[in-house]
């Protein structure tokens, strides 16, 4: 088991290395943060001064080594635009993103899981189709459009909800629905396939054969088992929502990490983009690693194979 964990950790580090090199190179290939400031009034000397101050006058390998070395010491570098450590910014924004992501996860649950359950239990019924269409709707429209239409209806026309920004629970409703609905479809699918798989399992057959009431079989025996992969997916979705809720955060002026990344990309704030991406990568890798280890713990066959 220890060997398994070591091996998986090693793989994870390789993936992170590839990720860091890729992101390092591609942000640099697409522009120059200093050029973004090159407006009349700025002078070549100012630009050179900024390049030197931001460490961009050094060669790429040197820049990368500094970056990689710093990452190992937990330092993601300093944002050009904010003149603040990226990790400080990240953790400043994290609560807002986490709040939105948790609310969105909740929304995705209440849309996706019942629809998936109905879809699995009552295959091809009208309820199944209705649930499917509702859950798939979030995936079938672009998030920005859904967000804006909601703002139009609920803020501008009806005046029920504030348009944007972080605040009370009312501020949370529209962004979390817009974000969570997108993920509902994947939950629907996984809940359904996982339920169908569980329902076909021997232990559910046995549960029925025991003469348990139908709801006990479905809601207790089957659902509890079907929930494991669903929760795994929800965990990964949560990480994605925290780090990449770009469009929804932009539409709703939500002060989260996705917007930080968005601004970083358009401003070519290299340390910011690298930092957020690496941070997200670490979270994803960690969650995958945990899942792998947990599954290996449950199923010895995985442990022995690759």
């Amino acid at each position, binding site marked *: 088991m220890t060997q398994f964990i070591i091996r998986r950790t090693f793989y994870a580090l390789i993936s992170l290395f590839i990720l860091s090199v890729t992101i390092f190179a591609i942000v640099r290939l697409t522009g120059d943060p200093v050029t973004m400031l090159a407006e009349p009034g700025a002078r070549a000397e100012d630009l050179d001064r900024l390049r030197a101050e931001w460490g961009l006058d050094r060669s790429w390998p040197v820049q990368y080594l500094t970056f990689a070395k710093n990452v190992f010491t937990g330092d993601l570098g300093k944002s050009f635009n904010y003149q603040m450590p990226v990790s400080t910014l990240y953790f400043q924004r994290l609560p807002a993103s986490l709040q939105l992501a948790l609310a969105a996860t909740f929304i995705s649950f209440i849309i996706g899981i019942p629809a998936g359950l109905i879809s699995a239990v009552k*295959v091809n019924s009208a309820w199944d189709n209705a649930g499917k269409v509702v859950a798939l709707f979030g995936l079938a429209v672009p998030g920005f459009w859904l967000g804006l239409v909601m703002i139009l209806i609920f803020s501008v026309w009806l005046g029920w909800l504030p348009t944007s920004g972080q605040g009370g629970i009312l501020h949370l409703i529209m962004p979390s629905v817009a974000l969570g609905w997108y993920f509902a479809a994947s939950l629907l699918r996984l809940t359904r396939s996982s339920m169908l798989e569980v329902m*076909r*399992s*021997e*232990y*559910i*057959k*046995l*549960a*029925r*054969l*025991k*003469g*348990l*009431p*139908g709801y006990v079989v479905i809601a207790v*025996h089957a659902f*509890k*088992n079907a929930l494991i992969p669903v929760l795994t997916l929800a965990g990964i979705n949560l990480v994605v929502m925290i780090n990449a809720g770009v469009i929804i955060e932009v539409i709703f002026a939500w002060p989260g990490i996705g917007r930080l990344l968005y601004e970083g990309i358009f401003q070519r704030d290299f340390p910011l983009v690298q930092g957020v991406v690496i941070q997200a990568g670490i979270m994803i890798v960690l969650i995958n690693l945990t899942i792998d280890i947990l599954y290996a713990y*449950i199923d010895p066959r995985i442990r022995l194979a690759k």
Partner: protein
Amino acid sequence: MTALLEVRDLQAHYVSFGGERVVKAVEGVSFTLEEGETLGVVGESGCGKTTTCQAIVNLLPPPGRIVGGSIAFAGEELTRKSQREMRHIRGAQIAMILQDPMASLNPLFSIYRQVSEPAYYHRALRGRGLRERVRELLNAVRIPSPAMRMREYPHQMSGGMRQRIVGAIALAGGPRLIIADEPTTNLDVTIQAQYLDLLKELQDKTGVAIIFITHNLGIVARMCDKLAVMYAGKIVEAGTVRELFNAPRHPYTKALLGSMPKLGSKEKLLAIPGHPPDLATLPPGCAFHPRCPEALPTCATAEPPEIQVIGSWSARCWRAEPQEISATDATTDSAKDIHAAAAVGD
């Protein structure tokens, strides 16, 4: 006195999307089972054995449906019962042991919870009484230190132990009939033998009737009183184990018996040539005729009727004939071989 279970002309079909494909998994199956008796049902995969059993407990997986016939259990007609009524039969009157002990237990519930459920729902046991009952059951299936084991989870158990726990679950509701669907397929040989012994012992103790679904004739020889051989959704031959093993009338039964390795022989397993037919597109006449070494011209055109050989012994074959009273009754050599083979297992 009515039989414990009387199945008459049972028909169960799977109708796929839109009805363009009908799989006649069970087509006119009849048999009876008395209290305390053991019936073996054998046949190749997909012959309708499992469907028959699922029909008995009215748990055909969709899109399966019972389309005809009757199932009388202790005088009550099961096919007319609602799912809610059936619920009180399942687990309480009829229990089932499934093929795969590894998969039959829910990995997320404790042994206690899983064993106690039938007693909880059917015998209304609660608290201390329930705990006592579980301990008894685990004792009965020879689980060591049951008080400790029942707090554990399936993944902490060995395969043999899990199958015994499945046995305990079957017994928990105090059923009169246990349907065991290939219960030992996934166990290794020594554990299989132990398990079969245990079942036999429990049957003796509780007087429960058992339907044993298997394709292992060794197990049949060891465990069963009666035998039904199924092919393509029909029972092609039925009778006592002794009768069928001694002088099988149906070529298919013969082929099955022939495919068993004889003790001490160097011969490997023999396969029956050809494939089992597609149940949605059965050949005309006798379903077995394409593979039958003794087929007559009539076999390809007309379906053979059920011919009563003697007593409850019947066969569906144009070649079968009613037997004279003076039939042999002694156990033949081949039957002895079979008993010996059963001791080793499949």
